[in-house]
C-alpha cells in the first residue's frame, strides 16, 4: 500500500488503521526532528547568536526564563509565570468584554432584518481592521494601562462573537418556542430555558474562533504599551538585541497558544456542543 493515498476511513475498513496511525506519528516526529536539525545546521552555518542562535542556545534561554539566571546575583527565580499570567488574564478579561459587546449585537442581528443590514457592514469592517489599529488606539486613549489591552482584545473578538450569536439566534428551535408558549411559559422562562442554552455554544464558538487573533492582538498591545506580558518581553529583548531571548519567548508564545487552543478550548467546546452531536446521531 505504500505510496498510495488512503483515507483513514478506508484504512480502518482495510484493518490497517493502527499501522497507519503509527506511520503518521512517525512522519510527524520526523517532521519535528527535521525542523530542529535544519535549524541547527543553519545556525552552525550562520554562526552568529545575534542572527540565528542554535536550538541549544535558545533552550538555555528558556531555562533562564523559567528558573532565573544562576550567574545573576539578584536571581529572581524565573519571570515566566508572572508574564504569562499577565497575558492570559488580559485575554480572558478581554473576552468578557468582547462577549458583553458582541452578544447584544448578535441578538439584534439574528432577530431582526433591519438591524442585520444596519450592523452587517460595521461588523465586517471591524473584522478586517488591522490589529495595529486597536493596539495603537487604546494606547492613545488610555496610555500604558491595564484597561487598554483588555479593551483591544474585546473589540477584536466582538465581530466574531456577534456573527456567531446571530447564527445561533437564527437557529433557535421555533417549534420549541411555540410549544413553550402554548404551554403558557413566560417570556423570561423561555429566554432562560430555550434561547440561552441554544445560543451559549455559539458564543463560545465565537470565542474559540477569535482566540488566536485575540491572543495575537493582546501581545501586540503589550508590545506597544505594557510593563508585563509575553509581548512586552519580546519587545524588550528586541530592543536589547537579544536574539536568543526573542526566539525563546516566541517559542513559548506559540506553544502556549496551541496548548490553550487545542486542549482547553476544544475540550470545552466539545462539551458545550454535546447536545448537538446527540441530535445528529439520533
Amino acid at each position, binding site marked *: 500500500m505504500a505510496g498510495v*493515498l*488512503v483515507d483513514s476511513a478506508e484504512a480502518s475498513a482495510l484493518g490497517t488503521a493502527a499501522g497507519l496511525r503509527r506511520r503518521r506519528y512517525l*512522519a*510527524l516526529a*520526523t*517532521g519535528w526532528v*527535521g*525542523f530542529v536539525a535544519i535549524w541547527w545546521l543553519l545556525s552552525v552555518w550562520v554562526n552568529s547568536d*545575534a*542572527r540565528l542562535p542554535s536550538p541549544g542556545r535558545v533552550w538555555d534561554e528558556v531555562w533562564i526564563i523559567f528558573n532565573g539566571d544562576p550567574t545573576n546575583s539578584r536571581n529572581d527565580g524565573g519571570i515566566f509565570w508572572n508574564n504569562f499570567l499577565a497575558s492570559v488574564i488580559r485575554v480572558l478579561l478581554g473576552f468578557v468584554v468582547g462577549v458583553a459587546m458582541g452578544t447584544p449585537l448578535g441578538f439584534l442581528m439574528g*432577530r*431582526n*432584518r*433591519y438591524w442585520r*443590514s*444596519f*450592523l*452587517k*457592514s*460595521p461588523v*465586517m*469592517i471591524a*473584522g*478586517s*481592521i*488591522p*490589529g*495595529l*489599529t486597536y493596539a*495603537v*488606539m487604546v494606547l*492613545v*486613549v488610555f496610555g500604558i494601562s491595564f484597561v487598554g489591552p483588555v479593551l483591544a482584545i474585546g473589540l477584536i473578538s466582538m*465581530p*466574531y462573537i456577534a*456573527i456567531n450569536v446571530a447564527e445561533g439566534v437564527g437557529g433557535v428551535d421555533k417549534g420549541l*418556542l*411555540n410549544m413553550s408558549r402554548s404551554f403558557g411559559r413566560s*417570556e423570561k422562562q*423561555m429566554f432562560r430555558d430555550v*434561547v440561552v442554552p441554544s445560543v451559549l455554544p455559539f458564543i463560545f464558538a465565537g470565542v474559540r*474562533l*477569535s*482566540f*488566536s487573533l485575540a491572543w*495575537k*492582538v493582546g*501581545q*501586540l498591545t503589550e*508590545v506597544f504599551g505594557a510593563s508585563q506580558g509575553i*509581548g512586552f518581553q*519580546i519587545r524588550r529583548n*528586541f530592543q536589547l*538585541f537579544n*536574539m536568543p531571548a*526573542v526566539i525563546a519567548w*516566541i517559542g513559548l*508564545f*506559540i506553544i502556549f497558544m*496551541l496548548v490553550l487552543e487545542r486542549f482547553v478550548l476544544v475540550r470545552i467546546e466539545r462539551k458545550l456542543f454535546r447536545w448537538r452531536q446527540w441530535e445528529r446521531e439520533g
Partner: protein
Amino acid sequence: MTTLIQEVEPEPDSAIKRWLVSDRGATLSAAVLFLVMWQLLTLFAPRVPTPWAVVKIMWIEVTGGDYGSVRKGEFWNHYAATLQRYAYGLAIGFTAGVLVGALIGASNIARALISDTVLVLLALPAFVWAFLTTMWFGIGWQAPVLTVAFTAFPFVAVNVAQGVRAITPDLRHMSTAFGVTPVKRFRHLILAGITGYVFAGLRFAMIVSWNGVLLSEWFNGQVGVGFRTRYWFDANRYPGFLGWVISFIIFVVALDRLVLTKLQARAFRWRKTNDELDKDLLTTVG
C-alpha cells in the same frame, strides 16, 4: 409580547421610510450614526481629534496644502513605497504558499512532515516577523517585504492544500476512465476545483499581511504608511495620526469589498453565497 419570535414586519407606506429600512439605507444610517458618535466622543475625550480636524490635515497630506502647486503632499510617496513592498512580499508569499500548499495537498508524506510547521507559522503574529526581519536585515526594504511574505505564506498554503484535497479521487478516476485528455482534465477538474481556494487564500493573506507591512514599517522604516502613522503618533499630533489610520483602514476594507470578495465570489460561484464567504473570512483570519 412577541419579543422572542420574529414576526413579519409590515411594509412601510411612504417611500422615504421604505428607503430608510432598506439594506442600503440601514448601512448609511450606521455610517451617519458612527460620525455623530465620534463627534460626541470628542466632547468628552479631549485627546480624540474631531472629524473636521482629521479632514483638514489629510487634505494637506494629500494635496500639499499651501505648497500644493509646488509639490504634492506626503500621502502619495508613502503609499507608493508601502504598496510596492506589499506587492513584492505578496508575490513571494503567494508563490511559496501555492507550491507548498499543492505539495501538502497532494502527498500524505509531505503533509505529515510539514503541515505542523505551517500551523506554527499560522500561529505567529505579524509583529514577530517585523522584529525578526529587522534584526536580520536592519533597516531597509527587506524587513517589510519579508514580513508580508512570511505572514501571507501560511494562509495561502493552508487554503491551497485544502483545495487540492477537495478534488475527489472519484472524479479523477472517472475522467481517466472516460479518456479525458490531460489538458482538459487540468482545466475543468483541477483548475476549476482549486481556483476558489487559491483566491480565498489570497484574500485572507492580503488582509492579514496588510497589518504586517504596517507594523514592520512602524518599527523599521524611513518611508511608508506605517512609518508616517508613527511619525504623527510620536509627534503627539493625533489628527494626522488618526487620518493615516483611517486611510489604511479604508484601503484594506475597499480592497476586500471591491476586489477580493468579488474575485472570490466569481471563483466560488458554483458553491457559496456572499454571506458564507464573509463568514469564511472571519473563521480563517481569526
